[in-house]
């Protein structure tokens, strides 16, 4: 327990100190990471803890964003709802719409539940472009963060602390919820809802309420995004937003409390860094998700926690390091192959070929000719060596464990 407390305080201290350590651009990325983390944690309350897979959480995130933008324009940062309290508007609309949507969708479970959430979100997504007054048409609705409580809310640092405050508060509330009897019931809903019903609990009401809570916190995340970008556009209701939070949650680990938050922060950071470096970053993101699902089904954080608890035998640090090295080498080879292929098929290359011949392209500080054997042999060798190393270590470890038995 003490260890956990120290860890939480250390993370909080680091988060508080970030503005002093990071550049403006990175601080802005941190704001996005915090918002994604809160959204994923809210989503995981429903998907991870209550075991109800929603495909339509963009709806509540988006409604929170739009409610906030309208509230910002209506109150002007003053009166009943000053700028720092704006996310309450997102929470309220999330809660109300979540109660309505939850009432219908939790009538069913499993695939049918997922389909209903998807349908409701798509309904909103299809409706939004037609309601120009509410959703602002193609150019969206914009607003302006007005000064309140003696703060300007103009700089990224101020908005960072505002988002940090709300994210920490909301994640703390969600964490507190897991410790209450209600939180236990939510887990019961996931593990065996029939038994819960036999025990006399109203599982439909329970499910509706969990759904509404999850939607309310998703609404807060949407509100924070609206505050950050001072605008809302109906593209926030797209399926892509629903899928992104789902991927983030599962990459982190849906069933461990901090997994989704860490997964979301990591993937947002990944997108922020790689999207300026390569056009293929979405491909890499997809491959990471696939690999995590295939080899780390409990998510990255879930898997690490399981190892710390000693599941799957004692950890051999040398083997772990060697595996990491193998994966890195193979990944380097793979990235090289993809990047070179992408460059050779790009329009830039087509333009460069105007002069005739097959010019070399630049990658990682070196020039690579399209028909030089090394250009393609190197990535293949790297992939083979990396995968070979991992296989070798795996076999050796398996033999060792067998010998121990």
């Amino acid at each position: 327990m003490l260890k956990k407390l120290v860890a939480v305080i250390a993370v909080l201290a680091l988060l508080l100190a970030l503005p002093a350590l990071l550049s403006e651009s990175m601080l802005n990325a941190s704001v996005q990471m915090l918002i994604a983390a809160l959204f994923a944690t809210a989503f995981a309350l429903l998907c991870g803890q209550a075991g109800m897979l929603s495909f339509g959480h963009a709806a509540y995130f988006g409604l929170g964003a739009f409610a906030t933008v309208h509230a910002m324009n209506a109150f002007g940062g003053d009166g009943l709802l000053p700028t720092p309290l704006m996310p309450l508007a997102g929470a309220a609309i999330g809660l109300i719409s979540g109660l309505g949507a939850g009432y219908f969708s939790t009538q069913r479970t499993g695939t049918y539940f997922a389909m209903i959430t998807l349908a409701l979100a798509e309904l909103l997504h299809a409706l939004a472009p037609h309601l120009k007054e509410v959703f602002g048409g193609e150019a969206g609705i914009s607003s302006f963060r007005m000064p309140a409580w003696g703060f300007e809310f103009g700089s990224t640092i101020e908005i960072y602390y505002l988002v940090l405050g709300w994210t920490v508060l909301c994640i703390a509330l969600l964490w507190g919820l897991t410790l209450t009897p209600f939180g236990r019931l939510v887990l019961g809903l996931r593990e065996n809802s029939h038994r819960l019903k036999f025990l006399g609990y109203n599982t439909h009401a329970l499910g509706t309420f969990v759904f509404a809570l999850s939607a309310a916190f998703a609404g807060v995340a949407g509100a924070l995004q609206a505050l950050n970008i001072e605008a809302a556009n109906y593209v926030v209701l797209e399926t892509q937003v629903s899928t992104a939070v789902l991927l983030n949650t599962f990459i982190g680990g849906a069933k461990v409390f901090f997994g989704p938050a860490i997964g979301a922060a990591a993937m947002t950071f990944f997108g922020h860094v790689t999207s300026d470096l390569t056009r293929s970053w979405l491909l890499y993101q997809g491959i990471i998700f696939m690999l995590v699902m295939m080899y780390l089904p409990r998510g990255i954080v879930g898997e690490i926690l399981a190892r710390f608890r000693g599941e799957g035998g004692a950890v051999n640090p040398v083997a772990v390091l060697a595996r990491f090295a193998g994966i890195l080498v193979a990944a380097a080879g793979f990235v090289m192959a993809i990047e070179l292929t992408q460059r050779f098929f790009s329009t830039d290359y087509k333009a460069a070929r105007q002069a005739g011949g097959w010019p070399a392209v630049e990658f990682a500080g070196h020039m690579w000719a399209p028909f030089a054997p090394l250009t393609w042999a190197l990535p293949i060798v790297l992939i083979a060596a990396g995968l070979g190393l991992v296989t070798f270590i795996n076999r050796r470890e398996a033999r060792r464990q067998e010998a121990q038995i």
Partner: protein
Amino acid sequence: MLKTAMCCSALAIMCAGAAQAEPLQVALVETLSGSQASTGLLYRTAAQYGIAKINAAGGFRGEPIKFVEYDSQGGPVGAADRVKAAIADGARVILQGSSSSVAGQISEDVRKYNLRNKGKEVLYLNLGGEALELTGEKCHFHVIRTSPNAAIRFQTLTKGMKELGLMGDKVYSINQNYSWGVDVQSIIKANAETVGYTVVGETLHEVNKIQDFSPYVAQIQQSGADTVLTGNWSNDLLLLMKAAADAKLKVRFGTSFLDQPGNIGNAGSVAEGNVMSAPFNPELNDATKAFAEDYKAKTGHYPAYVEPYAVFGMDMFAAALKSLDDATGPVSANEIVLALENTKIETPVGSLSIRAEDHQAEMPMIIQEVSKEAAFKVDGTEYGFKPLKVYTGADSADPVQATCKMKRPG
């Protein structure tokens, strides 16, 4: 020894930095990855071409322009993030064009940044976001649109088709149900009386979701229309034309985005005879031919779709910078905007200028039809766009929207 050498070179770099002015930094914030990247990449090619031309002519105030690309990851949220990053990295000019939703976000972000950072203003050059409100209620001093808009496209299209005898009396308006399509529909209806046609039917349909347009084609057939006007783009245009051909519907289409790469290749003979109003045609004169060939030599393909007017927008920017080139030191965004308002350039298609009231560009528009006789074939087919009629910038201009209340600095 090595250490002193390093010290010296570091000093030299610092000295050089102090002696020369900071180069003007231009940031392209576009969708460069994902499913919507194709148009973003066209703007990137055009912007690169434009910047290379400025730098080849000596850059700006003795320094080459620094051009940096940012990937907006497809939506307004990513774009907002990238605009902040670009400004933090020192960009004073933002370029973007592929989507009006992103344009709306960037335009507002720039407005707010400039309000909060007086004296460090940033300019947003909107190369292609065509939503009317961007020069209407959302207009402001630091955003300039160098592309046409719904009003410009459809006023010239209807007038041109009528004058060329390509417009029947009965017009059917079919458009996508969002702000762009709604704008187009209202312009088609508003022009009916002045140009002289009757709108016999109108439809607004879902955007990029419909796979089978035959029910809509049946409606068009029933209405007895001989001309279909549509602002549809991408699949919504392609599938509509194909469904009309399948039903053997005898109508002529008047469109705005028929030249999107792949459209003609996909539609083939179905598109023949259909008309489009667009700001460029390579066949028009020697200057347009020379431009098309030069563009091909530099980028590997003829300029198409959004590229020509994005390049002309960059030429406009280059001309404005040239008028400010005599001074030294950094340039302010306000100076560039004022220079842009006072600049008039001759593009290969005709003169281009920026209207001071709402910062909408006034440019020539060319009525053209899909024909086998076109000199420049597209998509590897036997078809191309044959120019029929040119409207000058003054002729094609739309009135300033009453909703635009621009606050000028000082």
